[in-house]
C-alpha cells in the first residue's frame, strides 16, 4: 500500500509539474524526511551543473518554515512581481489521521481485535500517505522554482538549497502575524479600490474575469471532491467492520453457511482494499489536482493584483504629472515617477501575459494527464473488483 502510494505520488508529481522544462542543470528532490511531532524535517537534495553552486551535489536539512520563508521572500521581491510565484506548500496536516486514531482508541472496546488491527493499519497507511503527500508538495514547490528561468537564479533560493547549516528562520512573531493579516486586509480593500480602474488591456481584462470565476469554481469543486473521497473512504472502512463481524459470525456458525460467510468476509476485505485505493487515487488524481490549481490560481490572481496595483500607480503618477504640469512645479520629478510606473507596469504586463499563458497551458496539460490517469485507475480498480466478485460468486456457487 505504502509503496503504491509512493508510486502514485511520484506520478502525480510529474503530472503536476509537467510544465517544468527538462533542464538537467538543476535537479532537486527530497529523498528523505523525518517527522518529529509537529515538525517535519526534509532533506533537500540538489544536483546541479550550474557554476553558481560550489558543489555539484549536496543535501541540506530544511523545515516547513524554511519553505515558507523562501516563498515570502520571493513574493516580496519587486523584480518578481510580474511572475506567478509558485504557491507555498501547505502546512503538514496530520490532524485528521491523528484525530481518527484517537477516535479509534476510544472505540477499541466495541471492536474485535482483528477489526481494530485493520482499522489501525488503515489509519497508519493514511498517516503515511499524508506524510508522503506533504513531502511531495514541498518537493514540487522547489522543482517549480528550479525549472523557472528567472526564479531558479534567485539568490535566496540558491542559499536555501546550498547553505548546509540550519537556516533557523525566525518564526513569525505575533506582531508580524498580525501585520501579515493586516496586509491581507489592505490588499483585499485595495483590490476593491483598484477594481474600479478601467483595464487597458483586453487580455488582462479577460484573464481577470476568468481567474476570479474559475477560482471560486475550483475552490468549490475541491471542497466537494474532498467530501466525495472522504465518504468513499468511509465506505471502504465500513467494509472492514462488516468483514470482521462476518468473520466472527462465521466462527460461531457450524453449518454450511460458515464457508459462505468466510468467503464473503474475505471478499469484503479484498474489496475494501480496492475501494480504499479508489478513494486514495481519487484523492491524489482529482482532489490534489484541483487543490494545487486552486492555489496556483491564487498565485496568478496575486500577479494580476500586482499588475493592477502597478496600473493604479501609473494612473496616479499620470494624475500627479498632470497636476505638477498645471502647477509647473516638480514636473521633472513627476515625469520621472510616471515613467517609472509605466515601465514597471509594462514590464509586469509583459511578463504577466507570458506567465498567464504558460499557466493556462500548464493547467490544461496537468488536467489532461490527471484525468486520464484517474480514469485508467478507476477502470483498473473496477476490473479488479469485478474479478474478485466473480471469483467469489463462483466459489460460493461451486460449494
Amino acid at each position, binding site marked *: 500500500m505504502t509503496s503504491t502510494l509512493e508510486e502514485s505520488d511520484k506520478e502525480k508529481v510529474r503530472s503536476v509539474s509537467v510544465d517544468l522544462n527538462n533542464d538537467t542543470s538543476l535537479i532537486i528532490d527530497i529523498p528523505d524526511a523525518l517527522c518529529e511531532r509537529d515538525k517535519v524535517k526534509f532533506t533537500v537534495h540538489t544536483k546541479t551543473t550550474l557554476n553558481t553552486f560550489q558543489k555539484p551535489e549536496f543535501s541540506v536539512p530544511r523545515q516547513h518554515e524554511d519553505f515558507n520563508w523562501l516563498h515570502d521572500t520571493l513574493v516580496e521581491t519587486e523584480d518578481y512581481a510580474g511572475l506567478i510565484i509558485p504557491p507555498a506548500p501547505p502546512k503538514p496536516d496530520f490532524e485528521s489521521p491523528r484525530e481518527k486514531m484517537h477516535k479509534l482508541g476510544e472505540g477499541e472496546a466495541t471492536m474485535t481485535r482483528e477489526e481494530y488491527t485493520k482499522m489501525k493499519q488503515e489509519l497508519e497507511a493514511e498517516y503515511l500517505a499524508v506524510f508522503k503527500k506533504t513531502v511531495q508538495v514541498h518537493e514540487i514547490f522547489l522543482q517549480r522554482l528550479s525549472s523557472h528561468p528567472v526564479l531558479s537564479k534567485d539568490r535566496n533560493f540558491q542559499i536555501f538549497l546550498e547553505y548546509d547549516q540550519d537556516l533557523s528562520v525566525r518564526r513569525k512573531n505575533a506582531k508580524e502575524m498580525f501585520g501579515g493579516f493586516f496586509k491581507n486586509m489592505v490588499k483585499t480593500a485595495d483590490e476593491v479600490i483598484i477594481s474600479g480602474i478601467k483595464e487597458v488591456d483586453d487580455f488582462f481584462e479577460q484573464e481577470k474575469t476568468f481567474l476570479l*470565476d474559475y477560482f471560486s469554481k475550483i475552490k468549490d469543486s475541491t471542497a*466537494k471532491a474532498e467530501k466525495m473521497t472522504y465518504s468513499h473512504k468511509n465506505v471502504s472502512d*465500513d*467494509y472492514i467492520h462488516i468483514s470482521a463481524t462476518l468473520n466472527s459470525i462465521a466462527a460461531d456458525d457450524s*453449518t454450511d*453457511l460458515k464457508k459462505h460467510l468466510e468467503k464473503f468476509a474475505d471478499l469484503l476485505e479484498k474489496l475494501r482494499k480496492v475501494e480504499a485505493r479508489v478513494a486514495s487515487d481519487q484523492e491524489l488524481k482529482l482532489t490534489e489536482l484541483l487543490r494545487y490549481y486552486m492555489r496556483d490560481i491564487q498565485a496568478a490572481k496575486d500577479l494580476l493584483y500586482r499588475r493592477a496595483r502597478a496600473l493604479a500607480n501609473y494612473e496616479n503618477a499620470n494624475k500627479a504629472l498632470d497636476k505638477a504640469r498645471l502647477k509647473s512645479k516638480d514636473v521633472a520629478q513627476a515625469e520621472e515617477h510616471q515613467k517609472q510606473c509605466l515601465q514597471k507596469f509594462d514590464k509586469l504586463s509583459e511578463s504577466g501575459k507570458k506567465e498567464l499563458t504558460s499557466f493556462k497551458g500548464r493547467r490544461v496539460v496537468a488536467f489532461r494527464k490527471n*484525468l486520464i490517469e484517474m*480514469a485508467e485507475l*478507476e477502470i483498473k480498480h473496477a476490473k479488479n473488483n469485478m474479478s474478485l466478485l466473480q471469483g467469489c460468486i463462483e466459489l460460493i456457487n461451486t460449494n
Partner: protein
Amino acid sequence: MAASSERSPPPFPDSEDQELEPDFDNEDSDEGADIFTGSTMADSKMDPPLPTSTDKLPNDLFSDSTPEPLSDPLSDASNKTESETASKLSPDITEVELASDEPTADLLNEPVGESTDEPNIYSNSASVTALIEEPLDNPTEKEPLDKPTEKEPLDNPPEKEPLDNPTEEVPLDNPTEEVPLDNPTEEVPLDNPTEKVPLDNPTEKEPLDNPTEKEPLDNPTEEEPLDNPTEEEPLDKSTEEPLGTEISKPEEEIVISEPVSAISEPLKSADEEPQKDIVEESHKEVTEEPPSKVQSDTATKPSTDLFGDSPDDDDDLFKEPLGAMAKKPQSSIFSEPQVDIFAEAKGDVVSKPQNEQPKDVPTDIFTEEALIPVINTATKPSVSASSKTNGVHSDEEEQDIFAEATVELSLDSPRKERKKQDVAKPSASAPSISVTPSTSKPQPKTLEELEEEESEDKFELNISVTNPEKVGDGMNAYMAYKVSTQTTMPMFRNKTFTVRRRFSDFLGLYEKLSEKHSQNGYIVPPPPEKSILGMTKVKVGKEDPSSAEFVERRRAALERYLQRVVSHPSLLQDPDVREFLERDELPRAVSTQALSGAGFLKMINKATDAVSKMTIKMNESDIWFEEKLQEVESEDQQLRKLHAMVDSLVNHRKELSVNTAVFAKSVAMLGSSEDNTALSRALSQLAEVEDKIEQLHAEQASNDFFIFAELLADYIRLLGAVRASFDQRMKTWQRWQDAQNMLQRKRETEAKLLWANKPDKLQQAKDEIAEWEAKVTQYERDFERVSATVRKEVIRFEKEKARDFKKNIMKYLESLLRSQQQLIKYWEAFLPEAKAIA
C-alpha cells in the same frame, strides 16, 4: 422420561427415606430421559427385582406377558434367551430376587402352566426359586430386614439391581431391543450359579432389617387404612399416567431414534399383548391360582419377603405405621392376602391387605427404584380388583394392566441409566450403552431427515406482495397490498388467486399463528414492525421519496414474511394461513394497535415474561438446548452489530452518492468556466460520469439496504422468535417442575395424614395426588413434545437461514458486480474524452 422416573420416586421422598434413597431419586430423574429411549432391556431387567415383593401376582403377569411380547417381535428363541438372561442377571440381584424369586417361582409355576411359552425361564426361575427357597427360609424371618439392607446395597452397587431385574422382566424388554437379547443368552449359564451367591448377601442384610420388623408388628390394623391410600395412588398413576405417558413417550422416542420404527412396533405390541395376557392371567390368578399359590408359597416365604420388605421400607421411609407390616403382620397378611386375593377375585373389599402388599412393595420398589414397576404391576391387578371391588375385572383391569406395562417401560429407563453409571456390570451396561448412543445421535439425524422429506415434498407455492395502494384519506388512510398466490398445491381451490390485504391483516395473521403455534415450540416468523412515524408520513405526505422508500421497504418485508410463513410446513397447514391467502374479505384484525388495550396487556405479559425469565433457573438436562441457546444469543448480538455496520455502510454510501452528485454539479460549473474548449468539454463529461456514478452509488446503497441490511433485520427478528421458542420450552419445563413440586407437597400432606391417622381427609389427599400426578405426566409430555418441536424447529431454522443467507449473499455480490461493470463502462467512455484534451 425424567418425569416418569421422578414420578415414581416422589412417593418415597415424601415420607420415606431421604436418607437412603435420595440418591436414587436423583438418578432416576436425571438418567431416566436418556435411558428411556434406548434401553428398554435394562428397564425390564430392573423391574423383576421389584416384583419380588409383589411378585406373586406380578410375576404371573410378567411371565405371561413377557412370553407373548417376546414371541411377537422376536422369535421364540429370543424369548427363551431373554428369560435366561433374566435369570442370569438375577444372580446379582439375588438379594432382592431371593425374596422375589420365591414368589416368582410360585407364580411362575402357575403361569407357566398357563402360558407354557417359556419353559426355560420357568425352569430357571424354578431352580432359582428352589435355591432361593432354601436361603429364603432363613431370610423369611430376616427378610424384612434384608430389604432395607438391600436398598442400601442397591444404592452402592446399582449393578445388582439391573441384573436382578432382567430375570423376570427381561423378556418384555428384549422384544424391543434385539441387542440385549444376545448378551443375555451368553450369560444364561451364569445365572444359576450366581443366584446362589446373592442368597448369601440377603442373609447379611437381614439382621439390619430386624429392628424395623419389631415396630411394624404392632400396627397391622393400621396398615390397612394406610394401604388403601397407597393403593389408590398406584392405581391412579398406573391408569392415568402410564397410559398416556408411556404410550406417548415410546412414540416420541421412536420418532427420535433411528431404530424407532422397528422398536415402536414391538413396544406397542408388547404393551398390548402383555395387557391382554396380564388381564387374562390376572383374572385367572385372582380367581383361581392366587389363592392356592399365595396360600402355599407366598404365605410362607414370598409373603414374608414382600411384607417384610414393605414394612421395613415403610418404617424407614415413611416412619409411619406402615412399618406394621413386619413379621407379625406378615403372618397375618399372609393369611389375609390369600384371603384377600380370593376376595379380590371375588370382588370383595377385603382387598385391602393385598393393597397393603402392593403398597409395601412400591415403597420398597421406590427405595430400590427398580422395584417400582413390578410394584405397579402387582398393585394394579390387585388395585383393579380392589378398586372395582366387584368381580368386574375386565375393562378396568385391562387398563390398569396396560398402565402397568407402560409403567414398566418408563420405569425401566431410569434403571438403564443406572446401569450406564454402573458400567461395571457388563450384562446390564452393555445393552444400555449400545442403546444410548443410537438414541442420542440419531435424533438430530432423523429430525433432519424428516425435514428434508418435508422440504422435498413441497409443492410449488409462490407468493408475491405487490401494488401498495393508499386507501382512504388523512389519518384513517392505510396501505393495501395485493397478495398474489400461485400454487400447484391441492389444498387451494385455485392455481392462482389474489387478495387485497392491509398491514394490520398481516399482523393479525401473525397474532393468530403465534397464539396457536408458539406455545408448542414452533418458530413463528414475525412480521415487520409497526412504524407509526413511517406510516404517518405516508398518510400525510404525498409523493415524498422517503415515504416511497418506506412503502417499498414494507412491501418487501411483508412479502418475505408471507414467504417464510408458507415455507413452514406446519404453518402452511394452518387454516388461518389459507384463509389469509384465499379469502376475499378478512374480518378486520383487532388488537394489533400498538397501544390499544390488548397491546398494553401484551406489553405487561412481556414484562412479566422477562421477569420470570430472569428468575427461572432451568436445570438444563439437555446440553444441546443450552448450547443452542447460547449460540442463538451470541448470534443475535453479532447480527445486531453487523446490522449496525451495514446500516452505516448504507448511510455512508448514500452520503457518497449525494456528495458525488454535488461534485458532479460543481465540476459541471467548473467545465463551463473553463476557457479551454477541450478541457471544458472533458470536465462536463466528467460531470456526466459522476452523475451516473452517483446513480450507481444510490442503487448500491439501496441494494445494501434491501438485500443485506433487511436480511439481517429479518433474522434479528427471527432470532427473537427462536428465543421465544426456547422460552416456551422453559416455561413448559417450569410448569412441569411446579406440578411436580405440588405433587410432592400433596404427597407430604398425605403422609402426614397417614401419620395422623385421618382416613376421612386421606381420600381427598389421594384424589389430589392423583390429579397432580396426571398433571405432572401431562406437563412432562408437553415438555418433551415442546422440546422435540423446538429442536426440530431450530434445525429447520438453521437450514432456512443458511439458504437465505447464501441466496442473499449471492444476490448482493451480483449487485456489486453489476455496479462495478457499469463503473467500468462509464470510465471507459470517459477515457477518450480525457485524452482528447489538447
